[in-house]
């Protein structure tokens, strides 16, 4: 499933578009950055409430397909600027992390 399919189906808000044709291979929920770094599989959709620059850096370095901010968590301007510069996909949803992850899981399996 591509990121754009997810946006279409569930109306996730676009925070930054890097490449919405990218495939989502899995889904991962966590807010501790080193935990995500060490455990999230490559090409995951990552559900978090951590909307800062460091989350963007983790997404880049750990090959995360898309950051999805759960429960409409705030994302700071610096993070958006960095995401734009590094083509990192960021979406936002009012749904809690588990609910959003369950929907994505259903779509990819």
């Amino acid at each position, binding site marked *: 499933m591509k990121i754009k399919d997810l946006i279409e189906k569930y109306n996730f808000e676009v925070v930054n578009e890097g490449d919405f044709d990218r495939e989502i291979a899995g889904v991962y929920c966590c*807010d*501790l*950055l*080193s*935990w995500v*770094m*060490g455990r999230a599989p*490559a090409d995951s959709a990552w559900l978090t409430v*951590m909307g*800062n*620059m*460091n*989350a963007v*850096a*983790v997404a*880049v*370095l*750990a*090959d995360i397909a898309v950051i999805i901010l759960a429960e409409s968590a705030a994302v700071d301007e*610096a993070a958006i600027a960095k995401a734009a510069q*590094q083509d990192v996909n960021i979406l936002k949803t009012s749904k809690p992390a588990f609910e959003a992850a369950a929907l994505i899981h259903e779509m990819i399996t």
Partner: protein
Amino acid sequence: MSVLQLHYDVPGDDFTRAGEASSAIKNKLKQMGIAPDAIRNVAIATYEGEINMVIHANGGTIDVTIDADSVSLVLRDTGAGIPDVELAMREGYTTAKEEIRALGFGAGMGLPNMKKYTDEFELKSEVGKGTEVRMKVFLKK
């Protein structure tokens, strides 16, 4: 393939720039056509090291040597050093302050991740002098 050496300075106490060296290294490896798995391993190891240097050591340096068989990483700082390396290597152990943890760091996974994602890992630390981490990721033929 000839040997390529890269050097990066990691500024201390600047979370906005943490990850720049790791991103630069990742891009360089991509340009060289190195396998994505190996690149990801190097990126994770260097980012964790970079963050550690920013949080604990007021910055440091990263030296990268790329040859036909491997990517070697040497991370050096002149920070406070690690009194108990065995404890520091334990998953979940952290000395990061609350404000650092609020940023999403301090899960106590930095050093364990560096070891997990590299094929060779060696840490030398002296209290009051600093820390040196040597890591190697082999490139599969």
